[in-house]
Structures are given as C-alpha cells and as structure tokens.
C-alpha cells in the first residue's frame, strides 16, 4: 500500500469510529481532522465531502466483510459449516472491530438520506451481499438449503445477526457474543435447511 492509500485507510478507520460512536450528524470534518492530527484542508484532499467519506466507509466495510466471506465460500466444506463460519466472522468483527458493525447498523441503515445518491439499492454493500448470495445459491444447488426468495433468507440471516450485535451494543446480552455462536448458527441452518 502506498503512503497516500495508507493515509486514506487511516482516515476511513478514524472517521468510521467517530461516526459510529457520536452519530453521523454530530461528527464534523474538523472533528475527524483533529482526531487524525491533520488539517481540515488536507483532509479535503482525500475526501471532498462528509457524504463522500460516509459512502467510502460503507464500501470499505463491505469490502472487508466480503473478503472474509469469500474465503469461507471458497472452502471445500458443507453449507452447515459455512453457516457457522459466517456467524463467527460477523461476531468476531463485532468484537474486534465493533465500530464497523455499528457503522453499518447506526449510520448506514439509519441515515438513508446520506446514501441515496451513489449508494442506490445495495451498490455500496454489493461485495458483501454478493458473497451471501453465492453462499445461498451454492447451498441450494447442493441440496442443503431450501430454495426460496432471496430476501426471506437474507432477512432471517442478517436480521438475526444484526439484532444480536445491537443487543450486545445496548449492554442487554448477559453473555459474550461468541457464546451464542453454536446456538445461533444451528438456528439459522435449521431455518434455512432443505430438510
């Protein structure tokens, strides 16, 4: 990674943390510049506006999670095992990089007006969604998952995981996320399974 790209990634990481914790509208470009110890003018050299930065962040998160899922999709394992691995990756990310998932739930999904131009539909999360589609499609093709409407299955899977991470973020869950991995991946697999 060259120096400029490294700086870009640093800005994305710092900004996503601020947006996720303080909220999109309460965080200003000067706040981000200050946290990075750089001038506002220089920050604008990297991202022309706060909206553009917000869109780049969601693409960055989608790319990060998409790559993790792609690795799982390429593994020669059953759909049941893949299901567990996807749950693990999601909870691991929620634990080790909590702001990524928070950004997705509390900024991207909660401030749709910011993303309407340039992030239409699922364009900005397409790397992640594509891998979920491949996981579903291959599961059906192999006779392991029940064939159904994509969104019925997608909502069940992602709504469940998002909900659990949200509860954790609100300090409502009595146990650590990883302690729920077995039960949750079994529940998801049983709900989606062809049998």
């Amino acid at each position, binding site marked *: 990674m060259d120096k400029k790209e490294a700086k870009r990634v640093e800005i994305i990481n710092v900004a996503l943390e601020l947006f996720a914790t303080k909220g999109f509208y309460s965080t200003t470009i000067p706040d981000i510049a200050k946290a990075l110890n750089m001038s506002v003018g220089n920050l604008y050299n990297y991202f022309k506006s706060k909206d553009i930065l917000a869109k780049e962040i969601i693409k960055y998160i989608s790319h990060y999670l998409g790559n993790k899922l792609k690795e799982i999709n390429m593994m020669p394992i059953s759909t049941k095992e893949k299901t567990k691995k996807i749950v693990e990756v999601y909870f691991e990310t929620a634990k080790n990089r909590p702001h990524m998932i928070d950004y997705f739930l509390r900024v991207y999904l909660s401030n749709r007006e910011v993303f309407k131009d340039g992030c239409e*539909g699922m*364009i900005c999360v397409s790397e992640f969604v594509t891998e979920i589609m491949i996981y*579903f499609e291959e*599961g059906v093709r192999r006779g392991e998952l029940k*064939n159904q409407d994509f969104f019925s299955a997608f909502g069940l899977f992602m709504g469940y995981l998002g909900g659990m991470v949200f509860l954790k973020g609100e300090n409502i869950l009595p146990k650590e996320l990883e302690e729920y991995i077995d039960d949750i991946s079994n529940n998801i697999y049983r709900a989606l399974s062809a049998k």
Partner: protein
Amino acid sequence: MQNRRVKLLWLSAIACNGNAHSFLNYPNLEQFLKDFSFVYHPILESLYSLEDIINKQVECDILLIEGAISPEFKKANTPIINLISKYANIAKKVITIGTCATFGGIFKESGYRFTTGLHFEKEKELFLFSSLKDKTISLSGCPIHPEVLVSTLYAIKEDLELHLDRFLRPKEFYAYTIHSGCTRNEYFEYKIDNHQFGRLEGCMFYEHGCQAPFSHGSCNRILWNGVNSKTRNGEPCHGCTEPDFPKQNLFRTKKNMGVPQFLPLGVSKRAYLTLAGVTKAFKIKRLEEDLF
C-alpha cells in the same frame, strides 16, 4: 465437387422430419437443386428408393443423417447403424442434421434403447463411429436453420475450410450465442424481465426461461424466414442447439435463492451478481414502459 452437382443421401433415423421440413423453407431451392441432387431423400423426389439404397450401393458425396440413432432402430428391416456405416464409408463428408442426430435430442426419450447422436450422447463422446469423426460436421438445432445447412453444403462443395467447435459444429454459425443480435438486449442489460408472451418489451432471461445467453447458434444473426426469431417475437429460447436439449420447465427460469442456475456463457457467478447488483439498483423509466 466444384464443377458438378453434388450427390446427397439424406438418411432419416429416429426423427420427426422437422429438419426436412425446415429445409423446404430454403428460399432458393431451385438454384440449390442445380448444384446438388438427392440420390435419396425420405420426403423429396429422388433418384433411388429406400429399397434401392438398402439393396444396392449407390454413389453419394455427402451423407446427411437426420434423427437419433439406436442399434435397435431399423429401416425396412435393416439396422440404421448398418446403413450409416455403409454410406458413411464411401461419402466424403457426413453431416448430422439437427440435435437428435448430433446429441440424441428429444428422441433420447423414445422407446428405443441406447438412443444417442452419431458421435455424442448429450455431452459425452461416443466411439462407435469414431473413425468418421474427421469427416463429420454437426449441425445442431431443433430444427436446423435451412441457411445453416445450405451454407455448410456449399462450403463443402467449394472446398472451403470450416472451423469446428468441440462438438464438430461450424464456428461460423455456432461460435455465437443466440443472445447475440437479440432485439431485447437493452432489457437484458438493465435486468428488466417484465415480459408478457408475444409482447415486444422485456427480457425473458430472468423469469421466463430464456436460454439465449448460454446457447450457441445464429438465430438472431440469420433470421428465420428472413424476418424474425423466437426471442425477438417474445418467446424464450429453449436452447435447442445444446447437448442437453430439451431441459425441463422451458418457460420458467430455474433459480436458486433468486440467482439463475445457468448464467450467461463464460460469466462467473461473482461477476454476474456484482453487475446485477448495480443495474438492479436503478430504475430506468423508459424500459419499464410499453413501446407503443
């Protein structure tokens, strides 16, 4: 064969004669019959009868085989494979006409056992007639387009080199997909099915079973009767040139959790889904409306 009439022997195996009927729609038949003659044809006037070609050995330059082949199938009490061997050995070229003669096609479902094409059973290569491979050209289709047959015959007559694909089909006609030249490509690009049979709007790939993006042929480059094609007219392509024709549920796109089971030829699932995600995010008003 450039300066004389070429002698054709048209042998019909387990067939519906659909290819023979399709051939009759060739518009320049009069000129064709000046350059070619049928020593035998099952439904056209020809020099010899079926009895003659079984009992004698008549001269022929090109053997045309229509219909699927089974060791059990006989013509006038003579096994079809004996007749094929007899004339294929003296002919300079052998052409399998239609998907049945090439891959087994719909007549694989016939009551005859071991029904196949001449060199292929669906995708699988066969060895019974392997010594004929070097002189065989496959023209798959249900039926074949008369222009494809006639152009191939003229290429042989003029001694032109034909580049063949792995199923021995001339690339001139089969290197393309049926999708190439379809008037509905705009709807395909923006992933709009929105189709009603017989209407001009919408692409039939997404819901209505159209196999054009992954089937080989020239239906939209060489139009039927010079005017139209199935997909232009509003009916899905059924992939009739392909080794696995006919599949089932031909009017419905087989999907796994919303993703088409068969994707455009050579396009990876990741590439397809990424592109689909982008185009589906946009609503193109013009393409949602009726043309007239």
